[in-house]
């Protein structure tokens, strides 16, 4: 074949063949190792590769009023979601988000920074409630931007708009800070949680349980198969004691004002309406608030985000006189017949003090003092009582303490005492300071809900009920509370308050056919001398106008507290609004045998 060297080539070719056999053997060995020895390990690796757990958001529970009318529901919308594991070109992404979704690159970067420590499997929600154009764009460009995906999300819809906004609160994405709080312990990054109001207070109840879906995905994140699906369960619905019609009427009456209004059931503490002005639109929060919008809300001097009903602490002014009267009668420092003389001004404990009526009320009895709101009378009573007994009774009747209403971030206000002064200022309490406390000025500050609650206490002659927004079954047994005052003395106070409405400072709250007991309050923000110096002083120093009342007198059902900031006299600004709210209430829930009322209204 090859001549002399033929066998040499044969030998070399055989060596070559053996070498090739060696190569094949190495490959065979490796295959054996991978596919026989380690097959299970790699099978699992492959499974992990394609298995994803997708959380299914739970729709939040609905919120309804006491008549079953919807206040808050959910709508299904698309959200734009960023999956960081598929992110490639950062600049390109920022550009497309700006041009197509109107998202500020700074906002996107801030989000990314916020999530830096969160595992990348958690998607970031960039924008809610996408428009059709945005949805279409994201759908069409899935291949180019696999990191941008769409997610069906149930989003909150506040049907009343800005109405009852403080009550409902709003929802938003849970912040890393909130995740550390126990209330949000079970939450995960990206979850939507209640931020304020009822949404916050009942978050765990409204929130529901998220479901999850185990799916196989392909390399570009598209779902190829659903392996397991645990559906989410919707949150529990919340029925409120609020009556939407009454709420709407109250909001109308408060329109354009700054202040707060609250109406509650005297016996059960159920809240019928709750208004804080100015208001905000919670729907703004559902569609990511822009930084400018947020700044505007936060920096507004009128504090639209604050729920003044539970967070606004104001001096109660003359309304506090009812408390001082009750305490004095209960402590026996006066009787119903005790009289003091009012000359318009007088020296007390070395201070010249005034009554609002410069010409004086003459000899004043308890009844007159309440009906005419005589300052001099209550200065005397206050000094007899002392600050600590005032404090004791105020707290018992719900002033200067949290009401315990089912809303977050309630403020306690302040009810001074000698202990408080010692603790905070390290000083003794001076009797002279009691003078201003006795007429609800000085350090005293209360929230409107406390005032409403106080009205319940006055109406019932017991400690007041805890205000509730969540409507509970009516069979809840209410503890029989001890009377605060003997019936006769109690009657005298109520009589005085009825005179306020019938013929005194609060006549604008009068109702046809229904007896109303109330008290006006005109709380100074600066003292009288200063006010006189500042002729035509600015509105922001004008007195706060209060009115608090309950009705009907014989069988009390509703208590109302209204404050109009810088409204001037309580009888002028606040009383008519309280009257209208009660009128609406009795229209909606007429007292037994109240046909008279309706006829009277028709006859007008």
């Amino acid at each position, binding site marked *: *074949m*090859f001549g002399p*060297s033929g066998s*040499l*080539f*044969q030998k*070399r*070719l055989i060596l*070559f*063949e053996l070498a*090739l*056999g060696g*190569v*094949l053997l*190495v*490959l*065979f060995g*490796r*295959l*054996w190792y*991978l*596919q*026989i020895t*380690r*097959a*299970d*390990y*790699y*099978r699992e*690796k*492959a*499974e992990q*590769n*394609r298995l994803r757990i997708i959380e299914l958001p739970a729709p939040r529970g609905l919120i309804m009023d006491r008549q079953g009318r919807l206040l808050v529901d959910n709508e299904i919308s698309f959200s734009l979601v960023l999956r960081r594991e598929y992110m490639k070109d950062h600049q390109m992404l920022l550009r497309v988000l700006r041009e197509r979704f109107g998202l500020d690159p700074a906002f996107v970067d801030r989000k990314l920074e916020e999530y830096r420590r969160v595992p990348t499997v958690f998607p970031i929600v960039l924008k809610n409630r996408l428009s059709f154009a945005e949805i279409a764009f994201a759908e069409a460009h899935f291949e180019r931007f696999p990191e941008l995906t769409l997610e069906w999300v149930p989003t909150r819809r506040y049907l009343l708009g800005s109405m009852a906004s403080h009550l409902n609160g709003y929802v938003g994405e849970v912040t890393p800070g909130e995740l550390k709080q126990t209330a949000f312990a079970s939450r995960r990054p990206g979850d939507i949680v209640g931020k304020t109001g009822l949404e916050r207070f009942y978050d765990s109840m409204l929130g529901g349980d998220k479901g999850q879906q185990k799916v*196989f*995905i*392909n*390399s*570009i994140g598209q779902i*190829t198969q659903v392996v397991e699906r645990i559906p989410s369960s919707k949150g529990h619905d919340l029925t409120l004691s609020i009556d939407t019609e009454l709420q709407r009427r109250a909001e109308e009456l408060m329109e354009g004002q700054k202040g707060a209004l609250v109406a509650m059931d005297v016996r059960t503490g159920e809240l019928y309406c709750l208004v804080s002005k100015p208001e905000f639109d919670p729907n703004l929060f559902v569609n990511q608030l822009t930084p400018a919008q947020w700044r505007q809300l936060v920096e507004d001097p009128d504090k639209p985000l604050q729920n003044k009903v539970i967070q606004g602490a104001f001096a109660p002014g003359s309304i506090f006189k009812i408390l001082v009267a009750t305490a004095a009668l209960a402590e026996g420092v006066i009787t119903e017949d005790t009289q003091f003389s009012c000359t318009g001004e007088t020296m007390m404990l070395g201070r010249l003090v005034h009554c609002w009526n410069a010409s004086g009320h003459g000899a004043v009895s308890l009844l007159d003092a309440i009906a005419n709101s005589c300052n001099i009378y209550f200065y005397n009573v206050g000094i007899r009582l002392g600050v600590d007994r005032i404090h004791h009774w105020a707290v018992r009747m719900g002033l200067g303490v949290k009401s315990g209403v089912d809303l977050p971030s309630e403020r306690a206000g302040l009810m001074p005492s000698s202990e408080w002064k010692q603790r905070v200022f390290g000083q003794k309490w001076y009797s002279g300071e009691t003078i201003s406390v006795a007429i609800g000025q000085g350090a005293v500050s209360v929230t409107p809900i406390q005032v409403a609650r106080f009205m319940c206490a006055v109406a019932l002659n017991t400690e007041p009920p805890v205000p509730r927004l969540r409507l509970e079954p009516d069979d809840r047994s209410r503890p029989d509370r001890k009377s605060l005052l003997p019936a006769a003395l109690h009657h005298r106070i109520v009589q005085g308050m009825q005179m306020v409405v019938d013929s005194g400072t609060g006549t604008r709250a009068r109702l046809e056919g229904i007896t109303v007991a109330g008290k006006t309050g005109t709380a100074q923000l600066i003292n009288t001398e200063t006010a006189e110096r500042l002729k035509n002083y600015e509105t922001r120093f004008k007195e706060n106008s209060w009115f608090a009342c309950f009705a009907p007198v014989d069988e009390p059902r509703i208590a109302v507290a209204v404050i109009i900031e810088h409204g001037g006299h309580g009888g002028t600004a606040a009383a008519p609004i309280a009257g209208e709210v009660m009128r609406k209430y009795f229209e909606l829930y007429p007292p037994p045998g109240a046909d008279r009322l309706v006829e009277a209204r028709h006859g007008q």
Partner: protein
Amino acid sequence: MGNKDWRQFDKILVGAFLMLCLIGCVEIYYSTQVAGDSPYLEKHLVRLGLGMLLFVAVLWVDYRVVLNHIWILYALSVLVLAVVLLIGVEIHGSKSWLRLGGVTFQPSEVVKLVIILTLAKFLADYPERYLRPVTLLVAGLIMLVPTGMIILQRDLGTALTMMPVFIVLILLAGIRKRVVALAGVILILLLASSWFVLRDYQKERILVLADPGRDPKGTGYQTIQSVIAIGSGGFTGRGLGEGSQGALGFLPERHTDFIYAVVGEETGFIGAVLVLLLYGAIFQRGLAIAMETSDRMAMYASAGIIALYAVHLAINVGMTLGLMPVIGIPLPPLSWGGSSVVTAFMAMGLLINFRIHRYTV
């Protein structure tokens, strides 16, 4: 001339080759499903058809006619490579493609065959007991000129396959031990210095071999995904179209350079070993042709062709099994890629050609 002994037509060789083609078609079909309806399989079938036509064409002409004029083809090859360098099209970072009409092809694939044939002719023309240095130098130049041009096209993978082929042919021709030793030293020096020549991504590929976790989304990612694919196939495989790695697209280049991983995943150890056995059969038959021929030219050529495909197999399969760095070379005839498939058909045609013209002079 022109007398053919059809009884010598090697059915095992051609049968094994066609089996590989078939396996390639099946896996190309299943691994491109993820991208939706794609023309991959159809295109591949067209190329197989073209390959078969060329296979027959190659059979028809006595190889000696071709080999005696091989220098013309060699010159032509160098010219074409020069043209590619000037007006070539860049695909996947390699400027090694020519576009004629709507068709792009990679001349370097066919050029590899021409280099082998040229070397075969040259070595057969200088039958020495041991290669003289001058002969060795000329043989080296024959290989290096076109290979260097391929390197310039940034197609290192294709160029790299020529090195082992050259070494096989030289060793076959006979070489003194001290020359082997000298060459060994030079080779080591070359390899060491190549570290400074290699581009960063090429170095990265070598480093990643040592530690695939080094860059799980980059070069190492491919190796990891490929090893997972093959390992998860187990003994019997996950079924055609059922392999999550390939069918879901986690494996990059799954229908081209990493097709063996899809075979391993979907048909398991059985399928993967079958592919090795089919290549083994081709190698065995090819080397039998080398041994049985009386013509040294044919002997060198068939050994060179087998060496070429053995290199493809070792590098490509080694890469998918995580034994070799990620070097972008296909696995003909399984891989999707026109030029390499067509070239493989021509190579097989040559092997059969050597055999059926064995006894005819």
